[in-house]
C-alpha cells in the first residue's frame, strides 16, 4: 500500500500574526513555522498503516525552500521520501495549488492520498477537493477513524455531532480531522535515518489563480469591554448588561 501525504508549512497556532508592510501577506519576522497540525495527523496515520501492512510513504509539499525542514521532520517520523515543489509566490489560490500538486502527484504511485482537512493558515479546506478532482479520485473529508479493507477503506466522518460510516474504493483521497490518531514525536534514531532519505526538490508549476488577493488586513478591533464585578456578586450586573444592553435575554 503506497501512500501520498500532503504537507504544508504554516505559522504555529501560538504565533501572533502581523500583516506585512505591503498589505498582501503576513510578516514572517519572528514567526515560528511548523507542519500544519492536521497534516501531522495524516503523516501519523500513514505511518501506522505502513507499520501494519508495509508500503511506501511519499510526502508532497508545496512551499518555500525552508519547508525542507518540515519534510525532514515527516521523514524522521517514518515517511520514506519527500517531494518539495518550491514556490515562493504569495497569493497562490487553492486551484493553482491543486494544479501544481496534481502535476507532481502524477509521478508518484499511490493507493491512498492523506492530508489534513484544512491548513490552519488559509483556513480554506478546498485544495484537497480540487486535487482529488484533478486526479479523478473520490474525496472523503473530516475522517476520525480509518480501516483498511480489500481495495477499499471504511472511515468515520464526524458531521454535526453525527458519525457517518462510509466506504470508498481505492485509490481515494481522505482528509483527516483531530481525533484520528496522535502524531508521534521524532526519535533520535528517526532523525538520523531521515538524513539519508531522499527529498526531490523542483520548481512548482506556475498556476492561474481563480481567486485573487486584494489586501490582507488585521481583524477589526473589538469594542472596549469592561469588568462588571468580582465573584458571584457580579452576576446581577452581568444579567442586566446581557438583557438591557445586548437584548440577549
Amino acid at each position: 500500500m503506497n501512500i501520498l501525504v500532503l504537507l504544508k508549512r504554516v505559522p504555529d497556532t501560538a504565533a501572533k500574526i502581523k500583516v506585512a508592510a505591503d498589505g498582501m501577506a503576513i510578516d514572517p519576522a519572528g514567526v515560528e513555522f511548523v507542519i500544519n497540525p492536521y497534516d501531522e495527523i495524516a503523516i501519523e496515520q500513514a505511518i501506522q498503516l505502513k507499520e501494519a501492512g508495509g508500503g511506501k510513504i511519499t510526502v508532497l509539499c508545496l512551499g518555500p525552500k525552508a519547508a525542507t525542514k518540515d519534510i525532514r521532520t515527516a521523514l524522521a517520523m517514518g515517511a520514506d521520501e519527500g517531494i518539495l515543489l518550491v514556490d515562493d509566490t504569495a497569493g497562490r489560490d487553492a486551484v493553482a495549488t491543486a494544479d501544481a500538486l496534481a502535476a507532481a502527484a502524477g509521478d508518484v504511485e499511490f493507493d491512498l492520498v492523506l492530508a489534513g482537512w484544512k491548513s490552519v493558515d488559509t483556513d480554506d479546506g478546498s485544495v484537497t477537493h480540487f486535487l482529488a478532482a484533478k486526479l479523478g479520485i473520490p474525496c472523503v473529508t473530516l475522517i476520525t477513524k480509518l480501516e483498511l479493507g480489500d481495495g477499499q477503506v471504511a472511515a468515520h466522518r464526524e458531521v454535526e455531532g453525527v458519525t457517518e460510516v462510509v466506504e470508498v474504493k481505492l485509490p481515494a483521497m481522505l482528509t483527516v480531522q483531530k481525533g484520528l490518531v496522535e502524531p508521534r514525536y521524532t526519535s533520535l534514531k528517526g532523525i538520523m535515518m531521515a538524513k539519508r532519505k531522499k527529498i526531490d526538490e523542483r520548481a512548482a508549476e506556475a498556476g492561474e489563480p481563480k481567486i485573487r488577493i486584494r489586501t490582507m488586513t488585521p481583524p477589526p478591533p473589538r469594542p472596549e469591554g469592561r469588568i462588571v464585578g468580582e465573584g458571584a456578586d457580579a452576576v446581577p450586573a452581568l444579567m442586566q448588561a446581557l438583557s438591557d444592553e445586548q437584548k440577549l435575554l
Partner: protein
Amino acid sequence: MGSGVLCIAESAGNELKKSAFELAGVGQRLAGALGGPISGALVGEGISGLVEGLGKRGLPKVYVVDDAALGRYTSDGYAIALKAVVQAADPAVILLASSAMGKDLGPALAARLGCGIISDAIALEVVDGKVHATRPVFAGKAQLEVEPADLPVVVSVRPNVFEPAASGDGAAETVAVDADLTGEQIRVVVKELLEPEERTIDLTEADIIVSGGRGLKGPEHFHLIEELAAVLGGVVGASRAVVDAGWRPHTEQVGQTGKTVSPKLYVACGISGAIQHLAGMSSSKCIVAVNKDPEAPVFKVADYGIVGDVFEVLPELIKAVKEKKGL
C-alpha cells in the same frame, strides 16, 4: 456568461435552516447590485415542500433536485445535482453556507464546475460590478479581501454573520431539475449513521456557546458548563487544553485547530485565552468571560468580564438565567 445569484439552501429534519434565510438576504443585495436574477436551490429527497419557505424570504424561483439518491448527503451526489442546477440557472455567484456540510460541498461543487471558491466569507460587496469578499484567515488573526478572477464563483458564507431575509408574502416558482443521477456516480457510500443520544447543533451555527477551560479543574465539573448552556439555549464548547487532556470531545474545541465560531453570545468560563483560542472566537458578537485571574488575556476581547471563581459564579449565573427566563 451567467448573471445573478443562486442560493443553495440547507435543511435539516424537513425544515429550512436559518443559514438559508441569511443567504437569501445577502443574495438579494448582491443580485440587486450585480443587476441579475436571484434564485434558490434545494437538493435532497422529499424536499419540494420547502420551496414555499424560500419564496417567503424573497426567492422568486427555486431549482429543485428531488431524488431518492440524495436522501443522505454525499459530496458526490449533492455536487452532481447542484452542477445540473447551476447549468440550468446560469448564475454568476453561487452562495452556500459555510456549515459542516457547506465546508465539504462548496469545494466539491467548485471542483466539478471548474471554478474558484471563496470560503467562509464574512462580508460581500459589489464594487464597480465586481464581487469583493472578506474572509478571515489564521482563524481570524487576519483577514483577506479577495475577488474572483472570473465567474461563476462559489462563495461559502459564514453562518450567523449576515442578516436573514425577512419573511414576507412572496411565492416561489418551482423548477424541477433532473440531475440524471446513477448509483455509480456516488463513489463514497454512507453505510450507517451513528446518532448520539442527543443531537446538538454544530458549534459553527450555534447562536449561543458556553465554553469551559482548565479553570473547571476536571471533566466532572463540566456539568456547570452544560447546565448554563442548557438554560441559555446554547451549546457546549471547550478550550484546546481540556480537549487535549481528554476531558471533552474534540468536536467541541473552539480555536485555530478547532472550530472558528461567530455566535451572538460566547461565554468563556475558566479559559485564560490562549492566542489560538481567542482567534477562533473573537468574531462573536458578544463575549462574556469568567476567570479568577484579572490579568487573563481573555478579558482583552471580552465585552463583559467577571473576575471570580467559576465554581462560585456559574451556579449563581445559572440560577439568575433560570429566574429571568422563568425556567
